[in-house]
């Protein structure tokens, strides 16, 4: 069971999450069970001791969880260590108060308020430690999930248009239909592959060509493509599916909205161990607010992925230059690692 959503990026868990609440209840009761085992003079009295503990523990737990849930947002704003200290102090403080209240009601727990406070604080500390360790264990999975999600972003519109094109070809140009289906298969194979592994640049370029071939079938003369990739070595490793979404963007925003032909230019060059990728497309006649958002979303995705792979080392820039829309990416170049002896 993936529980990425319980992790809020803060070392304190989300106190309004059902999973977190259940874990706290279970954890605290297990601790109480353990404590009862130590307390009970004989094994047969173990459960009795636990029930006695529980009478004191359960109201305390619910009180604490209630307060924590109510003040979740406030706690999230504090520094993590400070918030943890607050939570522990809260447990201790409420335990002492509750002990007082219970004694007032004539239910003497048989322990001192200091001991109650200390026990509660230790219990809270142990639970917080558990949550922190758990968050750390989940962190790589969170990143991975994000990568996966970001990767799977080919426009469904493209898939259905491509299928429509193929159905149109099948009867009269079966050979072309075959090629188109093969290309579509390659594209989806690339989409479904493990997104964490870097791939050789040559593969990215091949994929880009296949994608544009498919679009060319559909758009005909309207889509003109010029590649300028001869000057660059083909073996450096790059993140997968970096080029294709950019080309898709270029087609969607630069070619589809225009009635006349337009050219997409792709230029890849290398200098001083930095790989530079530039893609330009004509400007659409008018851009609606929604398209603008779509475009920014796609670019935002790629930027996030670059940050995940390269942290600060990669750069993505976009803008209008000389009447063309230009996206430029700079990556530190990674050659395939030679096998270690």
């Amino acid at each position, binding site marked *: 069971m993936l529980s990425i959503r319980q992790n809020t990026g803060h070392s304190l868990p989300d106190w309004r999450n059902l999973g977190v609440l259940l874990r706290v209840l279970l954890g605290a009761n297990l601790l109480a069970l353990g404590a009862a085992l130590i307390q009970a003079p004989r094994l047969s009295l173990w459960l009795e001791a636990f029930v006695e503990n529980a009478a004191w523990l359960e109201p305390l737990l619910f009180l604490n969880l209630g307060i924590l849930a109510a003040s979740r947002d406030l706690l999230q704003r504090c520094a993590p260590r400070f918030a943890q200290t607050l939570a522990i102090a809260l447990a201790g403080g409420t335990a002492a108060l509750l002990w007082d209240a219970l004694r007032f009601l004539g239910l003497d727990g048989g322990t001192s308020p200091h001991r109650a406070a200390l026990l509660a604080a230790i219990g809270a500390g142990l639970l917080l430690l558990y949550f922190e360790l758990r968050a750390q264990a989940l962190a790589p999975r969170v990143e991975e999930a994000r990568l996966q999600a970001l990767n799977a972003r080919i426009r469904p*519109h493209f898939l*259905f248009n491509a299928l*429509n*094109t193929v*159905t149109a070809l099948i009867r*009269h140009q079966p050979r072309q239909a075959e090629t188109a289906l093969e290309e579509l298969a390659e594209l989806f194979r690339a989409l479904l592959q493990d997104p964490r592994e870097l791939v050789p640049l040559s593969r990215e370029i091949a994929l880009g060509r296949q994608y544009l071939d498919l679009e060319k079938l*559909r758009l*005909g003369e309207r889509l003109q493509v010029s590649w300028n990739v001869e000057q660059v070595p083909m073996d450096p490793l790059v993140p997968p599916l970096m080029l294709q979404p950019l080309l898709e963007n270029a087609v969607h925003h630069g070619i*589809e909205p225009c*009635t006349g032909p337009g050219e997409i230019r792709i230029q890849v060059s290398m200098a001083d161990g930095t790989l530079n990728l530039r893609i330009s497309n004509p400007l659409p006649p008018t851009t609606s607010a929604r398209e603008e958002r779509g475009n920014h979303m796609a670019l935002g995705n790629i930027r996030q992925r670059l940050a995940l792979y390269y942290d600060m080392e990669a750069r993505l820039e976009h803008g209008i230059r000389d009447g063309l829309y230009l996206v430029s990416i700079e990556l530190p170049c990674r050659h395939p690692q030679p096998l270690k002896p």
Partner: protein
Amino acid sequence: MSTPATPEALSLLIVDDEPLARSRLRTLLEDIAPDCPTRVQGEADNGHKALAWLQTADEWPQVVLADIHMPGMDGLELAAHLGRCPCPPAVIFTTAYDNHAVQAFELNAVDYLLKPVRAQRLQAALEKTKLRLPAPDVEQLAQLGRQVRGNGRTHLPCHERGRLLLVPVEEVIYFKADLKYVTARTLAREYVLDETLTHLEEEYPEQFLRLHRSVLVTRSALAGFERAQDEEDAYGWALLKELPEKLPVSRRQWAIARELACG
């Protein structure tokens, strides 16, 4: 025209920007011809060209098959313009994938076909047009278009001596409301439109700016402002870059207009 008892070929116009998508529709129409005879009268690769084709056609087709996403003028705008003509053809939309459009169509009972189009679906849609159900009204189509494409129509219709003229919105410098009409001014001439300023203002909130109860101006056409000598006709005047005329600005819009235009 009465409904014929014997099956008579439905006349069609196919509008799609992709040649292969048009050819696919033609193939399908041939396939279903034994049950549902049709005759393709013409083809066009966007809404604008479809309207131009219709203007010169001797006889209008009974059905238009129109793609939703096309450059120049999309299918929804085409349908909205057709809706204002006398005896408009039935419109069936086609689309590959579009959540916005499909949801909107379901809500508004508009006929659409998903690509890749299937023969049975096409036939069913064509049969349905023979029932002559009321078409969705023009206002509704304009609304849908705005929802789907995220901005207003690219052209405004102007009916002049029985002909439909299309005024490209990007060429309009200002709209002015007189007692009865709204006129659109381009660099070349003036057109009388069947619109209201309020609708136009809603449709193009980013492009046009309200200067006065009776004036909307293209923001980029504004050159400057000047205060009026006497405030009888207007509080001030807006100057245009490409036309010598001045447009009245009301007291209410004065500050807003100046801020938006200069800021």
